[in-house]
């Protein structure tokens, strides 16, 4: 029962995602305000039901709701274009870059013959051979170091961590070598490496596999960090990251891998340092990225119904911050609400970590 929205706003998230639904948490608060009628009654009624129906209800509303803004980029792609899931978009980006430049290689656990633990590198080993798509043993520290060493000589490795949490084992290599070599060598060596991996809360993956490591990596000088949220920007950012001369860490989210969207046929790359304006508005700016974008967009619908006009920006580039877009936006609205992961927006809680914990506990009972 997954509703598929083509080219629509962030509502593309309304496909098969989490089993626990944050809307369930929001619903009770909404019933506090009986003034707004039909939509929310439907929400409340379906509240007891687990996940998808609620989402479907919302997504259907979203199509109907005129306040939904369409993304500037995808509106240009209606017409030609092909539909694919986010991990396929990543794969396409990777494959195109590997075709284009023989220096690009992929290293990671199970990326080769297995096809990648999230199928991002499926089929690449057969196409490019074992020397370009390398299955490594389970030694993050060493193979991240090897990727960086190879990058010093001019190769462009794409290092996949099976889970961002595993990259903590390689933190020394990423922080000390990857980030600093360009500086300490006075510019002699560039490290055009891409470190990517899924992170974030999945479905009951446990504490160690559900970490968000952006804040740890934020403090490392010399690296760039980007987070993708839709198939369009996943492919674009992957390509841009591979072509960049800087080390780039590409954060993906476990639960976003099955997002479906239509993306252009022609080649495109996204700017690594730019934020994406998801929904222009007037009253208040909400900054978000990755999975939270979808939660914020849904909250935005409710806000619109309540008469607010939020501006939603998907910041995409976590380091360096796109202060230009953000600054302009905040100047316009004079209020901003960052939702790094858990946002609070008056009583319209998007998702709080505490609420995730409660929901998981409820599910586990």
């Amino acid at each position, binding site marked *: 029962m997954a509703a598929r929205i083509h080219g629509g706003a962030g509502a593309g998230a309304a496909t098969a995602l989490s089993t626990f639904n944050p809307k369930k948490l929001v619903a009770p608060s909404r019933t506090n305000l009986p003034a707004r009628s039909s939509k929310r009654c439907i929400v409340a009624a379906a509240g007891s039901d687990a996940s998808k129906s609620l989402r479907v209800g919302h997504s259907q509303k979203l199509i109907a709701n005129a306040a939904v803004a369409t993304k500037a980029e995808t509106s240009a792609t209606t017409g030609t274009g092909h539909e694919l899931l986010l991990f396929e978009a990543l794969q396409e980006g990777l494959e195109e870059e590997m075709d284009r430049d023989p220096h690009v*290689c992929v290293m990671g656990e199970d990326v080769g013959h297995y096809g990648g633990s999230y199928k991002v590198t499926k089929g690449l080993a057969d196409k490019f051979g074992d*020397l370009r798509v390398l299955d490594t043993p389970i030694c993050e520290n*060493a193979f991240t170091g090897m990727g960086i*060493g190879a990058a010093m000589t001019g190769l462009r490795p794409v290092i996949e961590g099976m889970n961002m949490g595993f990259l903590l084992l390689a933190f020394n290599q990423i922080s*000390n070598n990857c980030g600093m070599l360009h500086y300490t*060598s006075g510019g002699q060596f560039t490290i055009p490496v891409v470190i990517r991996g899924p992170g974030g809360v999945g479905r009951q993956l446990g504490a160690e596999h559900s970490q968000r490591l952006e804040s740890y990596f934020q403090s490392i000088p010399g690296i*760039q960090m980007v987070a993708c949220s839709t198939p369009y920007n996943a492919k674009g950012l992957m390509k841009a990251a591979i072509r960049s001369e*800087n080390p780039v860490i590409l954060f993906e989210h476990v639960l976003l891998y099955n997002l479906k969207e239509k993306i252009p046929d022609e080649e495109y790359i996204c700017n690594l340092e730019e934020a994406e304006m998801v929904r222009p508005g007037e009253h208040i700016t909400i900054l978000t990225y990755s999975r939270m974008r979808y939660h914020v967009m849904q909250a935005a619908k409710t806000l619109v119904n309540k008469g607010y006009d939020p501006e939603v920006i998907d910041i995409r580039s976590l380091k360096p911050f796109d*202060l230009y877009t953000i600054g302009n936006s905040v100047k316009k609205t004079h209020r901003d609400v960052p939702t790094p992961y858990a946002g609070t927006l008056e009583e319209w809680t998007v998702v709080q970590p505490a609420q995730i914990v409660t929901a998981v506990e409820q599910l586990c009972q």
Partner: protein
Amino acid sequence: NKRGGRVKLQPMVMPQSEFDHAEKEGALYGKVMVHESVEFLLVQKPVSVAFGRFAVKIKGGDMALSRLTSRSNGISRPLSTAFGRFISTDTTPITIETSLPFTAHLCDPPSRSVESSTQELLDFFRTMALMRRMEIAADSLYKAKLIRGFCHLYDGQEAVAIGMEAVITKKDAIITAYRDHCIFLGRGGSLYEVFAELMGRQDGCSKGKGGSMHFYKKDSSFYGGHGIVGAQVPLGCGIAFAQKYVKEEAVTFAMYGDGAANQGQLFEALNISALWDLPSILVCENNHYGMGTAEWRAAKSPSYYKRGDYVPGLKVDGMDAFAVKQACKFAKEHALKNGPIILEMDTYRYHGHSMSDPGSTYRTRDEISGVRQERDPIERIKKLVLSHDLATEKELKDMEKEIRKEVDDAIAKAKDCSMPEPSELFTNVYVKGFGTKSFGADRKEVKAALP
């Protein structure tokens, strides 16, 4: 001293000189004397010739005796024609026996006879003396507070750098840890760059932004210069991977110490190298002390060459430049064909771990002076040069004086160099600048736009 002092002092086995041979000795001296006297007759100025126990003053002048010279060319003992006038530039081959045999693990050790030449011998002496002088000068600069931070000195271990350089090309990569001054010099770096970088000036090899531990030279494939112990070994295996990827027929020497030999990432990298058949050579410079901890207190198995288990290894006397040369040659051939190999260089450092470490709290002074007397690499080469009559004591002393002057000149020039500009703080953080603002500690004071 409970913490150290167990380094074995292997006395240096002098190469057997034919001059000491019981029977041949007198005849040889006579033959040499005739040969040399005839040679020098061609020279117009009087020279003082010293060889063995004889010092003869010869006056030159008769060109007609050149016929005699040509007849005497068939002398059995190879002898350099330059003898007191100028240091030899010819490449008369010399075979030298290493003082100790190689110990091998899972491979056949190479032979003990090393092919060398007179030119090489003198080069070795000169470069090692230069390295030694440079390190001692760095010591005094540190004490004069011109060099700050960390300074890890390599004196005592010069033979490893020299022997390695003798057999590899500029395409073969070397990566090492923080004791990198001499290896940088061996790779073609200049003294001026070294001192400028040590003192943080902008003409340094890393523009003053790296310091003692971050020397790099991209055009000669010297990948540095790393502060974190052991982290350079996976980097080195990655460089070997890249060399294999582009099919370069080059190898990578990833150097580390006995302290780093206990790092896990080493074994991880070795596993991958062996799996993928990478041309990486792991060189353990075993100076028996990991900062303040002796190897017997840090490693259950101090045979670092065996630690590779399935990877072959070779134990080499690291104070003998020719043994190092032979081992590196062997290793390079091995790595190009069969994948990784470990070399353990048994060496010693005279200084402490770094300048803040006196070096005597965990070792005995007797041990240090004992090694200096018995196994010093420069002394060894000096004795070889003298016994092969390639130069006199005086000439070698003159060479050392010249080197001293060269080092002093480089220091003076580096002292004159300017410090890097403040805007350099923000360059090279990213390759392409973003034009975004970057702030210093005080947001209002230090601001710069990233280029």
